[in-house]
Every structure is written in structure tokens, then in C-alpha cells.
């Protein structure tokens, strides 16, 4: 072998030619109950998956036990319900947690879930310093896009800092939080916004840690090294490659300049990925398989900015929750990419590319400008409270929608080449969709009752009291939470104790000051209908737009609200996490002409029932029409319409003004009834 190293080869420390290890293969998974999810995890691991990514159901994420009224329609729908340590023990039964890299998509209740995980390990006799994994715990993006926050921003940041402090001393390989730009892109962020808002979030966290002054310099460096990211990659994969490279470089600069981190190892930009679901279409869903592949390129091609862990969505996500087979198909894509191609044999293949370098530079400059703007406005927490970041996202989303509607952005099968042969993939027996077994929820609630019955009540109460005191006195709450976990405190009890201490937060909605630039014949048609309506009835048609239940993905509802105003409606919009009673009460007080609700969590059947019951009991069921939007599987349409839903809109109905036109027809039908 010659001494001269070749630029296209990878060498290890000994100078031998080598190749990279693949990234961690993960599948975001969890559903029904802890028994079913445990089985799923074990079978995924057996298929060659190398890490776990736990999906929790919405009650667990929002801090409600499964037997709470607001929880009932959601149990096991978008993830696994976890009520107590007993559930956690079942969930990880027969899974070697000391060898596992476990990622939990958990935010509002992240401290609680980490405490349960630690308590589970301790009860099983595992050395907790060996635990590896991540609690997502990025509350800023929850306020912006995902909606499973509970407490006000300052208190949420405190919880995050508590966790960093605890983890660094006790579970050094645990990522106490993840900076998520993933959901920002789903919410409409441009690459520059994604870079800027994610890095601002990291700065907010690190500034708060610095302020607490609980680490030595060496510890702080290690703590910076624990900051990891969870990023999104879309269809514009060249730009995405550049975005990832910009992220790496900017993070290196920020950690050097702002935080003086000397060890380059702790300045490395470490990130996991879930590629974009936003661009996946309900129309011709088989095309999504290609989209997922292309999106994967953006985060794997460049070695200098390659992801550490990769999760792929399933091809049919726009239709409903994926089935095990759909997830397996996505896992296979990762395996083909990592093991059949030569990708992992080369050093960075873009180094020296003028095009890539120029694009990276451009992104960096713009993103730094935005970061400085936010810092000047008072930083990340302030930008949440004022709604600045939220409004920017809704504006970008509005622009994206406008481009789709005008056909300026082509999405194959959606706004171009829409005719085609029907996909055989959606034709199998269950219509290609996954549904949760309703009986399984009962098992969860029975287990919860059992836990409450068997526990040492005095110990549980004492542990909650200690938690409340720690919250009040500014003491790190991790120890108290772990004791709560061991005392078989429930998810609802832990959360309620902190709700009492910190209060619940209602952030700005992001609809203020928004406008749309849609101009179309349909818009003119709608506005004409509205003018006629005003002429006849002496007022502007009124619509209430609400998001019932725990699903916090508010952007769809907000788009509808903004679009409705653009059409000329008076729109009452009041945020997320509303009960059916809340929505009906507003509809009655505001004397609206139509109620529009948006649902993405799969609990539409239950919630629509609740809504109609409320309307019925107020004698308004025949007077106020209800329309529904969101991810609603086609097989559910008929039953929903029979219940009385007047129109159902899905991601297929992306022409917002056509939706408005339809809504005006519903209102006019009602008036002439």
C-alpha cells in the first residue's frame, strides 16, 4: 500500500482504509397500549432496527392520565399511553435498556418521562449512568408548532435546565433536550427560519444554563456537547444539504464565540432526522415512497453534515397512522441506502464545491441576521410571548399555500398530473389505514386503577408534596420526580402538581396580522357570495374555528382562519386544546353561522360525537352546521356525514378559497332551510 493517502478514501486512526458506520435506524413508533407497543419494539429490534423512538399518546404528552375526560378520545391514538412506572416496566419488558439508545418524543412532560425511565432502570437493577438516549423537550417549538406545552415559557426553560443539570451528573450520555427544527419546517419555516429559530432555541437554553451557573467550565463544555438537534429535510434536497452544512458551521461558530467551548468534540453539530411529512400527499400516495428517498439524500450525502439517527415517515402518512408493514418498508429504504450503496466509503463529497459553499454562505448570513434580530428583540422566550416567531411561520406557510394554489410550486399528483391509474397499494382489505382497537384503552385504564389501588398512598402523597416544594423553592425537581415515579404517582398527578405551581400557558396564536396574497376567480366568487349575504342578512357571515382535543398541530386551523378572513368572514379563532363544550359555548355566544373544527390525531369520530351532543343539549344541532377538516380517512366519511357533519376537508383540499366557497354554500343552505 502506498504511503500517499488518496482524497477519495477514508482512513482510520491507524491509517487503514475504512468506511463509516451507518447512522442509527429508528422508526417513530408506539400505539394502542404498553403491551402492544412492547411487542412492536421487540419485533422492530429483531428486524434490524438499532434504536428506539417512542411515540407517546397525546394525554401522556399533555400531562393527563388516561381516565381524564379530555384524554378518553385520544388513548393510544398517536402513541403509547404511559400512566405510571408500572406502564413503563411493561413497555420495556425484555428490552435491554442498558444497550438501548432510546429517543422519546416528549416535551411538556419530559421530566416526568425521564424520571419514569430512570426509575424503571433502577428497579430493574440497571446502572443508570449507562442509559443513553434523548428526551425531546424542546418547548419553544411546542409553543410555535406542535402544541404539547403545559407551563409558561420561563418555567418550561427551568425544567429543561433542571434536566441538563441532573443528566450531566447522573446520566452523562443522555441528551436532556433536543433542539427541534423538524416541526418548524412542518409549520412552514423556510430554511433560513429553520436555521435561525432552532439555533435561537439552543442559545436560549444555553444562556439559561449559564445563568444558573451550576457547572464548572469543563462541565459546561460537556453540557454544550450534549445539545443535539432534531431536523427536517424536504424535497429541495440540494438546499437541504446546504442547510445541514450551514447548521454544522453555525453551531461551531456559536459554541466557540458565544460560549468559548474549546474542545471541538463538544462543538460538533449532532442531529437526528425525520424527513418531511409536510410534502407527502394524500393524492397518489405511492409517489411518497420516492419523496422519502429523495429527502433522505439531503441528510446522508454529505459526510460533514450527516445525521446521527434517521427516522423515515411512511408513504401513507397523509392518509392515516402507518401500519407495521408501512414502517417496515421505510426501514428497508434505510438499510438499502446504508448497506447496498457505497455512500459510507467516502470522505465528504461536496468539499470544495463552489456552488455548495456559496449557497451555505448565503444561508448562514441570512440566518445569523435573523438570530441577531431575535436576540435584539429580547431573545427566544420573548419572541414566543410576543408571537414574533409564530407569526413569521404562519406567514411563510401562507406563502407556501398560495404558491401551491397558484401552481407556482409543482407537487406531482396534487396540482399537476393529477390523473392516473389508481394505486393498488390503497386497495387492500383495511383500505390501507391503521386503526386503534378501542378495547385496548380499557386495559390501560384498568392497569391505571390497579396501580392506584396497590400503591402506598402515603408515599405517593408525600412524594407529590416534595415535588410541589421543589417547584416552589427553585430546587432541582428531578430527584423529587424520580421519587414520585417510584411511589407510583400517575402522569396526571405529576402534571397537576406543577400546573398548580406554575400555571398553564396560552401562547399567541400566530394568526394576528396575517394576510394571504391569494387572488383567484374562486376568491372573487366567494366574496360575491359574501356580499350578497351581507345585503340580505345585514351582517357578515360568522364562523368559529376550533381545535378540539389535545392535538396541538394548530397550523391547519390557523390557515383556515386566516383564509376565512381573507374571503371576508368574521372568524372567531381561539387556539388549541378545547373541549367540545368550549367550542359549542363560543359558537352559541358568538351566534355563528358555521362551526369548523380541525383534527389530525385520529380521534375525529369520538370528538364529533361529543360536539353534536353538546349542540343537541343546547337545542342548536339543527341551527348551526358543522364542518370538519384534517386527516380524515375516506372510509370514515360516510359515518361522519350521517352524524351530521356537513362537509369534510382533507389535505387534498389545498385550494383554500374553494374550501371557503363550499362553506358559504353550507351557510346559505342553512339560511334557506
Amino acid at each position, binding site marked *: 500500500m502506498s504511503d500517499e493517502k488518496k482524497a477519495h478514501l477514508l482512513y482510520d486512526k491507524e491509517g487503514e482504509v475504512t468506511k463509516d458506520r451507518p447512522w442509527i435506524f429508528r422508526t417513530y413508533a408506539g400505539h394502542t397500549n404498553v403491551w402492544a407497543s412492547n411487542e412492536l419494539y421487540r419485533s422492530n429490534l429483531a428486524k434490524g432496527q438499532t434504536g428506539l423512538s417512542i411515540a407517546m399518546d397525546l394525554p401522556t404528552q399533555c400531562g393527563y392520565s388516561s381516565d381524564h375526560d379530555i384524554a378518553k378520545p385520544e388513548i393510544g391514538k398517536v402513541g403509547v399511553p404511559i400512566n405510571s412506572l408500572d406502564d413503563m416496566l411493561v413497555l420495556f419488558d425484555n428490552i435491554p435498556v442498558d444497550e438501548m439508545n432510546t429517543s422519546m418524543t416528549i416535551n411538556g412532560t419530559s421530566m416526568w418521562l425521564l424520571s419514569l425511565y430512570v426509575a424503571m432502570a433502577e428497579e430493574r437493577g440497571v446502572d443508570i449512568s449507562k442509559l443513553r438516549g434523548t428526551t425531546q423537550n424542546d418547548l419553544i417549538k411546542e409553543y410555535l408548532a406542535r402544541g404539547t406545552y403545559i407551563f409558561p415559557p420561563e418555567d418550561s426553560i427551568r425544567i429543561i435546565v433542571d434536566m441538563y443539570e441532573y443528566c450531566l451528573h447522573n446520566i452523562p450520555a443522555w441528551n436532556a433536550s433536543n433542539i427541534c427544527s423538524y416541526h418548524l419546517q412542518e409549520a412552514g419555516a423556510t430554511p433560513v427560519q429553520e436555521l435561525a429559530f432552532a439555533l435561537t432555541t439552543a442559545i436560549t437554553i444555553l444562556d439559561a444554563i449559564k445563568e444558573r451557573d451550576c457547572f464548572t467550565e469543563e462541565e459546561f463544555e460537556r453540557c454544550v456537547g450534549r445539545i443535539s438537534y432534531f431536523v427536517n429535510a424536504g424535497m429541495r434536497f440540494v438546499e437541504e444539504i446546504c442547510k445541514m452544512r450551514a447548521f454544522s458551521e453555525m453551531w461551531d461558530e456559536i459554541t466557540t464565540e458565544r460560549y468559548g467551548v474549546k474542545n471541538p468534540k463538544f462543538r460538533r453539530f449532532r442531529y437526528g432526522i425525520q424527513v418531511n411529512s409536510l410534502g407527502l400527499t394524500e393524492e397518489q400516495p405511492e409517489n411518497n415512497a420516492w419523496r422519502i428517498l429523495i429527502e433522505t439524500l439531503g441528510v446522508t450525502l454529505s459526510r460533514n453534515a450527516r445525521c446521527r439517527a434517521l427516522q423515515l415517515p411512511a408513504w401513507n402518512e397523509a392518509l392515516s397512522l402507518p401500519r407495521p408493514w408501512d414502517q417496515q418498508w421505510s426501514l428497508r429504504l434505510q438499510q438499502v441506502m446504508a448497506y447496498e450503496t457505497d455512500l459510507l466509503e467516502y470522505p465528504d463529497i461536496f468539499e470544495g464545491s463552489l456552488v455548495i459553499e456559496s449557497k451555505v454562505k448565503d444561508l448562514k448570513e441570512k440566518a445569523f441576521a435573523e438570530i441577531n434580530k431575535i436576540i435584539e428583540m429580547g431573545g427566544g422566550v420573548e419572541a414566543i410571548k410576543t408571537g414574533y416567531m409564530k407569526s413569521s411561520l404562519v406567514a411563510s406557510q401562507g406563502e407556501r399555500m398560495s404558491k401551491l394554489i397558484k401552481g407556482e410550486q409543482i407537487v406531482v399528483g396534487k396540482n399537476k398530473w393529477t390523473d392516473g391509474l389508481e394505486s393498488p397499494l390503497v386497495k387492500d382489505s383495511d383500505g390501507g389505514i391503521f386503526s386503534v382497537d378501542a378495547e385496548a384503552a380499557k386495559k390501560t385504564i384498568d392497569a391505571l386503577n390497579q396501580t392506584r389501588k396497590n400503591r402506598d398512598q402515603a408515599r405517593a402523597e408525600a412524594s407529590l408534596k416534595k415535588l410541589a416544594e421543589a417547584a416552589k423553592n427553585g430546587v432541582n425537581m428531578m430527584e423529587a420526580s424520580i421519587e414520585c415515579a417510584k411511589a407510583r404517582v400517575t402522569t396526571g398527578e405529576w402534571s397537576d402538581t406543577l400546573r398548580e405551581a406554575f400555571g398553564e400557558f396560552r401562547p399567541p396564536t400566530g394568526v394576528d396580522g396575517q394576510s394571504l396574497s391569494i387572488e383567484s376567480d374562486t376568491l372573487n366568487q366567494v366574496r360575491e357570495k359574501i356580499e350578497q349575504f351581507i345585503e340580505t*342578512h345585514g351582517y357578515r357571515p360568522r364562523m368559529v374555528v376550533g381545535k378540539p382535543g389535545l392535538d396541538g398541530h394548530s397550523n391547519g386551523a390557523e390557515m383556515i382562519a386566516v383564509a376565512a*378572513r*381573507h374571503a371576508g368572514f368574521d*372568524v372567531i379563532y381561539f387556539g388549541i386544546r378545547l*373541549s367540545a363544550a368550549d367550542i359549542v359555548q363560543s359558537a352559541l355566544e358568538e*351566534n355563528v353561522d358555521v362551526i369548523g373544527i380541525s383534527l389530525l390525531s385520529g380521534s375525529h369520530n369520538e370528538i364529533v360525537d361529543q360536539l353534536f351532543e353538546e349542540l343537541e343539549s343546547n337545542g342548536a344541532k339543527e341551527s348551526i352546521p358543522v364542518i370538519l377538516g384534517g386527516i380524515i380517512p375516506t372510509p370514515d366519511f360516510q359515518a361522519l356525514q350521517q352524524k351530521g357533519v356537513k362537509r369534510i376537508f382533507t389535505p387534498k383540499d389545498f385550494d383554500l378559497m374553494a374550501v371557503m366557497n363550499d362553506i358559504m354554500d353550507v351557510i346559505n343552505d342553512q339560511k334557506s332551510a
Partner: protein
Amino acid sequence: MTKSLHKLKLSNEALLEKMLEALPKELENLLSKAQVHEKWPIARLISIFERNTTENLIARHQIVSYLNAHPGKFNKQAMVLGITGTPGAGKSSLIGEVCLSLLKNSADISIAVLAIDPSSHDSGGALLGDRTRVIFPVKDNRLFFRSQASQLDLGGMSKQTFHVTRLLRKLFDVIIIETVGIGQSEIEVRRLSDHTCLVMQPLAGDQVQFMKAGIMEVPDTFIINKCDEDTLAKKSLHLLKSSLKLASIYVDHQESKKKNIFLTSATKHKGIDELCQFVLEQAQEKVSQKSLNQQEDYFLHKWIKQAYGEFGMGIFKHFAQDEALCTGTLEQKELRFKQIIANFLKHLH
């Protein structure tokens, strides 16, 4: 009531005649339910006071006459509290906290909130988002919340807002009006409120800016909200006092219209109890018939100006002694004026 009435375009005389008919049974029922604070009946009555059709005009007259004729049953005489201040001062959250606190501490109180948001100049539509900031109790009939669009009215306070207060005064103890907080609304809200509060952020704007805007003369009470932190709060209080002194407004003697200053934090629940106490005290004070008449006159004149300009006002002054124009409900006066204009135009031919 049928749609046809609106389309028929009856003569003013015929409409004046029609007004004299008794209140339809259907509306009487709604009023009975509204009187015990059932939400949907109140909401539908409010709509009658907001909507601009002939049916609604007549119904308004009939309802107001009915309410006046049954003072025993409809014995409330609510105070209207106007809350104004720039967007971002935290008006919605503050109002929410005040309401929740009032409900908690006064078992018998009934409150109506009327929150106004701006209409879009482009589409005319509006996003009414004031419910977002507060988690109100569900099914507590002591509190009623309604959103209204400003309808591009220059004052940010449409005639509809005033109309609605005419109804709500008879049904509730306290009415809180939240303005859009931009343009002229600070000034306009005084025209229909018995007491006006200006909500500010700590250290908001410099003193000169305040005086230029001339809004310091408007409010009866100042509220510095978002006083989460004591030092900042005290600093702001000092700043406000000194700028009020500079404008010779803040006079600490026993004048009836004493300017009050409150320091509050809606999120940290500071100063809310004091503010609530003050609201309750204000609610005790009887609103004089004279000031109600003044409010009504103001909105009658405003309507005439908007509909007929200075020409209209000239006519109005000319007919100042006209008995029909000075008596009866606002609706009768409006119709009478339309009649005068119509006659005037007829003579021109």
C-alpha cells in the same frame, strides 16, 4: 319576521307604524331566557342589535320599548367599563383575570364582555381572537363573552357596539368593552363607557409621545399591566405620574373624576384583587339618565354625519325642535330623520 320585509323597502311611514306593533312572542321568549342569562338567547338578541336590516331595526325598537316598559323584570342597569390600550399591553389577559376573579369572589355578579377586533381593509373580514388568551369557565351563565368586528369604523367602535350596550345594560351588572387599541378607539370608547381604563405596558413609550397623542386626557383610570417585576413597575408608576403632572391632569384632590392608577400583572395575578374591588365600587354607582341620553345623541349624530355628512347635520339642527326627532327610541329617531330627508328630497322635485 320574514326576509321579505327587508326586501319590500317599505316607506318610512309604514315602518314607523310597524314599530308600534307589540313585541312578537318569539322575542319575548328570548328576552325571558336572556334575563336568566341563557347564552344562546342572549347571543341571538345581540345579533338583532348588530344587524343592519329593517327587521332588526324594528325588532330593536320593540325590544328596547319592552325593556323600558318592564323595569321590574329587567331591573339591571349595568355600568359600562371601557378598556383601551395599545395591542400587546395585555388587555385580553387582564380582562380575563379580572372576570375570573370577579366570578370567584362575587356569587351574584353577572358580566358581559364585548371584545372588538379590527376588520381587514382588504376583505372586510376580521379575525376575532380575543378568546385565545383566557380559559373561561364553561357553562357559567354569569359570564357572557362576545366578539365584534370594528367594521372599519374610524373610531374602531362601531355603532353596533353602542347598540349592544343598550341591550346588555338591562341584562348584566357589568359590561366590559375591549377596544382594538389602535387609531381613534381610545377616544371613541369614552362615548359609550361610563368609565374608561387605559392599559399600558411598563415604561411604554416616552412621555412626550404620550402627550402628543393626547390620549392621556381620555382615561379615568390608568392600568400599568405586565408588572411582573417590582422595580420596573415602580419606575413606570413614577414615570406615569410625572408625565401626568406635566400635562396637569393628575390632580390628587377630591374631584369626582379622580384619576386612578393600578399596577397589575395578569400572569402573576398581581393587583387584580384591587382592580376588581374598584370595578365593583364603580358598578355600584348609578348611571345617570342624562349621560345615557348623551351617549345616544352622540351616536345619532355620528350616524347622521356618516350617512348624510354636514348637510345632514344642518338639516338635523334645523329640525332640532321637531318633537318626533327628540322623543322615543333611537330607532324611531332614525326613521323620523329618514322621513324628514325623504320629504326634503321630494320638495326638491
